[in-house]
């Protein structure tokens, strides 16, 4: 595979999920802050809800690394 396409693919593999995660967290964050203002006892649930979309970015990162390693190899 051409080097430039390889790097572009790897960047997109992590970039797009990261944007998606950011968008999801931007929606969860304000709701979480409002929830915590009223019910501080829900801290753990709120932290989990914020952390859940990060899976997408992390899996994107893994795929990106695999693209670079497999393509480079």
């Amino acid at each position, binding site marked *: 595979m051409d080097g430039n396409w390889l790097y572009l693919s790897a960047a997109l593999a992590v970039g797009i999920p990261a944007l998606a995660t950011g968008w999801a967290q931007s929606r969860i964050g304000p709701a979480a802050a409002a929830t915590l203002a009223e019910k501080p006892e829900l*801290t*753990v649930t709120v*932290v*989990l809800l914020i*952390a*859940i979309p*990060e*899976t997408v970015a*992390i*899996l994107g*990162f*893994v795929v990106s*690394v*695999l693209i670079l*390693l497999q393509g480079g190899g």
Partner: protein
Amino acid sequence: MSRIRVLGPREELQSVLERIQDLGLVHFVDFAETEALTQLVLTPQQERHLRNVRRVVEDVNTAMRLLGETPAPSRRAAESLTLPRAALIAGRARRALEGLEDRRRQLEEERSLILKFQPFFSTFDKISTSGLDLDGIRIFYLVLRVGGEQELLRLRAALRSALGEGFELFSQPSASGESAMILAVSSVDAKTAEALLSEAAVQPLVLPDQFSEGGAIDTIRRMQARLKDLPRDLAEIEVERKRIASVRGRDLVRIQASLHDHLSTITTMEKAVVTPRAFVFEGWIPSAARADLERRLQKSFGGMIEVETISREEWEGEMAPVVLKNPRLFRPFEAITRMMPLPSYGSVDPTPFVAVFFPMFFGITLGDVGYGALLAAVSLLIRFRSSPNTKPRAVSEIGLACALFSIVFGFLYGELFGDLGHRLGLQPIIFNREEAVIPFLGLALALGLVHIVIGLSLGAVQRFRGDKRHAVGRAMAAVMVILIALALMAAFELLPERFFTPLVITILVLFPILIVAEGVLAPIELVSTIGNVLSYARIMAVGTASVMMAVAANRMAGAFGPVFVGIVFALLFHLINFVLGVFSPTIHMLRLHYVEFFGKFFSPGGVEYEPLRHWSPREGAV
């Protein structure tokens, strides 16, 4: 736990509750009224007594908070302190301490007000030595922000054009970089000067009330004198507080404990139901302590009190209160379990698994001798500054376990503040995380597989007591996940290829059994479980990000011209990476536990075991 019912003569109810409080093991529950048994209603006299007790408790709690220390309780017997006497002591102590607190607050406010004028002191020294006559002069106290030279020039020009030579503006830079300025104008021109200051958006400081009278130099002299006197006045308040602590502190501690105990027995009385002559209440007690309770009541009341055990058939498991009981080594990790609702009675307490896997995953992710040692130092600091059985103490002990695993895995990866370890001769034992991304990913997924299979197995064991078909389904899911992992390994030639076909056939054979046991949603559940295993890739992702940040920090040392500047940047970057390296794995490991692991077996809904027991200042009740 055993559910018990206690019956006895109505007039002995409070005494019985006091003996039960001494034992400290009975968790009371509300008792439903029947035709013959009615809820105990306090008499007007008892209600009045309860209100009095609550008021004294509030007084003593406030007094203890303001006292700021907890002396050892007095040896005087509790009985010698009657309620009126206790109310008198607590009320007087509260009023005295509140008075002292008000006075202390006033003095602190006065000090902070005078400190605002401190930058003007040296300017006034200059004025007083210059021989300037300040009679009939209005003084404005101004503070010019850092870099406000242009504002000063503009203000001076505006004053000159409006007042000509009829003003003096003294400026003195202070240690903070701001300038303290004094504007002196004739009283006649005061209004004009005020308007000019307002236009220039310079807000003059207003003198505190007690200094508003008198000449400017005299005012500043008085402020200087007052600032010298204030520490003495504050020290006098502290002496008085200490005197109250030594004279009344022990009595207050005794009153606080005995009244809290008394209050809890009165409020527990409302959980009893009564007939005109007898009382009945129900509660939970650890099965091993039941005989002890009976013996104590027998000793105190002879045969007047009857303790019955309610048979297991008469109550549901969910009704029993829950207490987490773990070995000392695992106990700090109960704080992590307690962040979720308590597990229901009779279900698995996940604390021992959390105690093993949480610090291990954390250590695999952070995996650095340097950062691990730093975390250990921070944890030890928190440990020495915290009291036993408190949340900070639990956090420090969890931190120490995480630090230990981080140091161990740091040696295995050969990392000390990133690649500094390699440069100092520390060699990786298992793999170098900077390069071995795929082996690290494999390790993370393998750990995920083990963790999820343990979760599914616990789910199977837990369900085996009730719904056996679902228990088989859970066990089958665990087996299927293992088989799918093995088949994938065979497909990628990590296992001999000849295993692939038999493994796939076994999976196909087991699949219908899984659907029969778990229902038609079982395939979706299985895919979701495989997704859960993949989620453990975050251990690799967060770990790799952490080590790369550390490597970047080390490279900074040589990237900036002078070595000193590079080292400062590198240290700052390492500090940021350390904070991120502790925070990020904590959040992700919590998520792996709560979502992926607990989701396979955890059954929430337990009621906290809160027995009637004696009160203590630290924990509320002991």
